[in-house]
């Protein structure tokens, strides 16, 4: 009996995307992937991203020990055959440090985005489903929080949380959820009066079940799109904090702290700035282009508006 259960849920959940009647064969995810594949820019961005992630994750696994090893006899040597990206002021290999720093930056970007998405989705679902007075109040809270000087609060929180990677995730995630909440609430408002929700209610499903089984699957799409556009923003926030000396602390490094090191040594050893900077910018660019492509693929109508 077990395998049948999820199929029923799928059948109940999918019609909201409005696609089942038109294309019964391909699910919305498959359609989205097909549209994305036709978008050359997005695919180049996707493959660039895949390569960067493999390089960073693989690199940090391989060089985790050797990246912090100091070679004081080859301090600040420019890029060469043995050290592709040169060495820093303590003779550490910049290539290894860039890859290891990248995996920290990517990790912060992904985990903090997850935190922000979970908070935002939960908030938006509740606000949208609760309706009237509760919804009004909850959205007014979001409006007020939008007026807050965001980066100032991240700085404050990171100063107070101290040099802890875990708290850094939470601090950034706790501030970045506002737009997700708005997006999800908008989706729920459109969905909650549709027939499939009414049908579920008529069958006796409780609010929790409707939230979890019927509304959540339908807001996942927009949330994923928004998440892919949030990751670069959060990585930038982390880089800013690390640049200011408030983020990850030595001996751990991220792209932000590497760029900071490079910026203070740029006069004599510009490669310290150029290589981590180039990796960082390429990643941000790829994430943004991929996010744009995903948005266009999910909602073809929006593709020509920008």
């Amino acid at each position, binding site marked *: 009996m077990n395998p049948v259960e999820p199929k029923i849920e799928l059948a109940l959940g999918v019609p909201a995307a409005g696609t089942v009647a038109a294309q019964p064969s391909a699910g919305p995810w498959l359609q989205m992937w097909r549209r994305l594949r036709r978008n050359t820019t997005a695919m180049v961005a996707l493959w660039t991203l895949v390569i960067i992630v493999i390089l960073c994750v693989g690199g940090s696994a391989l060089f985790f020990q050797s990246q912090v090893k100091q070679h004081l006899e080859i301090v600040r040597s420019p890029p060469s055959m043995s050290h592709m990206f040169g060495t820093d002021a303590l003779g550490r290999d910049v290539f290894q440090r860039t890859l290891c720093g990248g995996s920290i930056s990517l990790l912060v970007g992904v985990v903090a985005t997850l935190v922000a998405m979970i908070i935002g989705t939960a908030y938006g679902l509740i606000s949208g489903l609760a309706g009237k007075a509760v919804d009004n109040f909850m959205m007014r809270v979001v409006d007020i929080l939008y007026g807050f000087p965001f980066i100032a609060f991240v700085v404050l929180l990171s100063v107070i949380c101290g040099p802890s990677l875990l708290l850094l995730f939470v601090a950034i995630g706790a501030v970045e959820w506002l737009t997700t909440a708005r997006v999800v609430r908008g989706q729920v408002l459109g969905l909650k009066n549709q027939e499939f929700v009414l049908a579920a209610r008529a069958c006796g499903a409780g609010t929790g079940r409707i939230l979890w089984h019927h509304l959540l699957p339908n807001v996942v799409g927009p949330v994923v799109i928004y998440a892919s556009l949030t990751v670069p923003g959060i990585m930038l926030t982390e880089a800013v904090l690390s640049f200011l000396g408030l983020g990850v602390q030595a001996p751990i490094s991220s792209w932000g702290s590497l760029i900071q090191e490079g910026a203070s040594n740029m006069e004599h050893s510009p490669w310290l700035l150029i290589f981590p900077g180039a990796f960082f910018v390429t990643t941000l660019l790829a994430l*943004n282009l991929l996010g744009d492509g995903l948005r266009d693929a999910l909602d073809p109508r929006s593709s020509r508006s920008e």
Partner: protein
Amino acid sequence: MIRFIISRLIQGIIVVAMVLSLTYVIMALSPGSPFANDKASSPVVRENLERIYGLDKPLIVQVWKNLKSFATFDFPVSYRLKGWTVNDIIAQGAPVSFTVGGMAFLIALALGIPAGALAAMRAGQLQDRAVMMAATLGVCVPSLVLGPIIALVFALHLHWFDAAGWGNTGDWVLPSVTLGLISAAAVARLTRGGLRETLLADYIRTARAKGASERAIVMRHAFRLACQPLLNYLGPLAAGLLSGSFVTETVFNLPGLGRHFINSALHKDYTVAMSLAGLFAMLTVIFNLLVDILQAWLNPRIRLTDS
């Protein structure tokens, strides 16, 4: 209209008061004291210092006292910088941040709007692609990468300007260009997006049919409406630029509001951090209100109501 402005101002005052209280509470609840770093001071001295500044009172009393002093623009004294009031710090930092931010804002508009308009008018052509590629790249190059590169090229190699500091007449140029270029990229994208949509509207066809020149159509007819999404972005941008960019002020070593805020947060200087956060919130509220009024004035279809 008047009711709208008044209700928004009241909402703004609530936001600023909440930012002030929240900043103070976050800082006060975190471990450590503003006077803990004075290595010479014994516990007795520290306790006396805390009593003088009122830190031994209940938290709610402290918050209320500081809110009151903020409301009357009689800002409290700094806990860390001896002999400084918050007024002094703002008087010293604001000119720096306002000069750099204001010039950056002008650079962003002067560069971004024409570039975006050109791209929209030549949609799909070479100019459009070039502008959009540059703009997408510009959006993704953060100031912590662009700032040092600009300093490297124009200060350390070409010696046109000083790499850091505040004192010479040209010191605003490099930080303003850094911030301006990055903001110009976003401005260009929004201008192009808004104009492309507006240029398809019926009233633009009417203007064309009347024989208006392409230049007049874009500048006089289309831009009024096309700049609405851009204006939404410009409110927070102006507030953010005037508050002083944390990164750019660090890169170019400027004594602006952003640097003061980070130092006060690091050194648990409650009153300074709280007042500066309040100032940032106030700028955001004011610029968002200005944007709303400007949008209604440009687009007669928008009616301002207080609901």
